[in-house]
């Protein structure tokens, strides 16, 4: 797993590549924590992810919870299309097709990404 942390004045961008699975979970948690301390806004670039498991999805939920508590914002960059993440999030029940009620879950980070991507975000 390769995570690059790019900071500018407004936001911190986390560029994730490789396998976001249990083996890399501690590393991902540490980088997410660090990023949230740097700037009020964190954007995750998931385009380079090759494999995702539940530990990563849970970490995204956890990061969103942390950001809310400290009045910061974290989101997945919808311009970075990642099929693996979308499939895993849907399969794992973290977001659903719009026609099913209850898609507005308490954890909006994955649901927001899913909605934005499905509404035709840039897939480049």
């Amino acid at each position: 797993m390769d995570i690059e942390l790019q900071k500018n004045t407004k936001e911190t961008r986390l560029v994730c590549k490789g396998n976001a699975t249990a083996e890399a979970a501690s590393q991902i948690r540490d980088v997410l924590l660090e990023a949230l301390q740097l700037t009020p806004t964190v954007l995750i670039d998931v385009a380079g992810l090759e494999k995702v498991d539940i530990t990563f999805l849970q970490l995204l939920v956890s990061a969103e919870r942390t950001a809310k508590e400290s009045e910061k914002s974290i989101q997945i960059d919808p311009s970075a299309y990642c099929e693996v993440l979308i499939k895993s999030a849907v399969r794992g029940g973290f977001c659903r097709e719009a026609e099913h009620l209850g898609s507005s879950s308490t954890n909006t980070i994955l649901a927001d990404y899913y909605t934005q991507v499905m509404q035709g975000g840039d897939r480049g």
Partner: protein
Amino acid sequence: MADQSEYYREEARELLELIEQKLIDLENQPEDTELLNAIFRAFHTIKGSGSMFGYDEVAEFTHEIETLFDYLREKRISSNKQIIDIALSARDHISDLIFSPETLDPTAGESILKSVRSYLEPLQSSPESSQAAEQQPAPPPVKESVPESDALETTFRITFSPQREFFLRGAKVLPLLQELEALGTPLIFAHTGEVPPLEQIDPELCYTNWTILLTTTKTRNAIQDIFIFVEDYSDLHINVIDDAAQLDITSEYKRIGEILYEQGYVDQETVESIMKQKERFGEVAMKQGIVSKDAIDSALGEQQYVREVRRRRQQQQSGTTIRVKSEKLDNLVNLVGEIVTLQARLAQYTESAHDGDTVSVAELENVSENMDRLTTELRENTMDIRMIPLAETFNSFHRLVRDLSAELGKEVELVTSGAETELDKNIIDALNDPLVHIIRNSIDHGFESSEERQKAGKPVSGTVSINAEHSGANVLIKIQDDGRGLSSEKIRKKAIQRGIIGQDSKLSDKDLYSLIFSPGFSTTETATSVSGRGVGMDVVKRNIEQLRGKVRIDSQPNLGTTVTLTIPLTLSIIDGLLVSIGPERYVINLSAVEECFELTPDLFPEGQRNEYLSIRGEIVPYIDLRELFAVKTAVPQFREITVVKAGESKVALIVDSIIGQHQTVIKPLNAALNFIQEVSGSTILGDGTIAFILDINKLTEKISTAV
């Protein structure tokens, strides 16, 4: 994190040992289903865990071995020495793949799979190609092939809660959910309420649990099999929340409170207290912090999902039109005309009253009487429009009988009578499947072979006759065959074997025959594709009971068997007798009522309360409905009796008072009240209150059991 693959190797070693032992046992007991299940599960676990722990080659190879054992379990192929040999080689190959991949013969796996496919492919290909495959020496003949499309769909709610250490044991969730997708299209809800913020999270622990809704033709066991290798470190509940085998009168589904109660998020008391607030349950429960938004989301999702499943099913079942005689529509239009005229008269009276003119009681009574007459006629006319003859249904059975008898090499003729008998369209639609089941059973099991019939001095060709006729507010449909009749001894033996009755149970032939309707009962030693899976007759009984009907079976050795269905003419409106018991009011189907009179002490034999009443010298068992429903209010000085009849049984019901006749629009019971056996539905009275409809069949059954 611990070395995850070590867990897998340990587990695989044990499972491979078990497979070896069980395969040897299977060679001696090839029909032992338990052995087949155990071997199937062991291969399944090796496959499932293999894919979770990165042993993809093992998973891929084992998949086909698992399929072979699945077919053996389903009796699509029979176990033989060659299969045992192949399975043992497969077991050795898996062992090599896991423990000594370096010494592996690369061609061994492919050669084993080739042998396995020689059994599987004939069953997976078209009928034409399976004929060609029969010429090959290896595969044994197909015993049974159950077409998947014939199976009814069931919707399951699966709640899956892994332990915190789930991931540490190397287990993964997504492959499990992916496997569920192979059974149907699941709707999955992840509950993440326990996921802590980053500062507190241990990223290798599992904080999420899942609710999964799945509509599938597969069984609960098939779902359980998917979770089998994680069952030691997770909590799994699988509940049926919708079953296509049961007839839906409505597409409605449980309320949010009920769903949350079933899912264990709230207790009954909380549900009742929130319901009293007459606001949206979810909003109140969330506002008060009783349940999380996740839980509400999944309850709402479940409600919508099941409604959609039911709506789709209803559309498939009733998306048809009916042909109505123009005369019936003309009558309807005339009635509407009369109602409009009556309404105009009523409006005139109201206007007169406003202007200070008096309207006489006689005039109002006249309007009321006319309205009463028109409502009754309108009801009867509308119901009549829904009534269609049984002819079309009966006609479709000629083809069924022809094809089935040809398939089974029997000569059977179908004779129908009373095809002009009319029934409510919904009932006719719902009757089709039970009738098909009964006819199938009759042809498959009821008839002897042509040779046996000849020997018994019977005509070579057997006859199935279906007769329909009116009987009061019911229609009786009799399905009669002139076959060998039921063997009470065989039924008895099987019932003991299945644990349905005890060794020493002494049952009459009639009671023994009724055991055929027990779930899972089948007297055939081997299932056939026609019937004999033991799922037919209990579904027949359940479906007929859902139509508020009854099913009875009579049989005489060598003369044949008769199944009689008693079906109410309509599902939606009945003429009822309104009675009161304490503060509540109940409705009794008027067609079941024989007589009503006052309860006097002389009705009790010898002046004492016991189990019977003496009505004009006839001994009739009675039920005091006050006692049955544990009514605590003061007992009125004068009480009344209504004598009801269901089938052969007559029962006196003691009520507080008989209010009178009531046109009853039947509403299905709320799911929470389904446990009340003596009540079959409810209705809304003129004053807006609710009255329960008593289930006379259940009440009479109750008393005959008690007596």
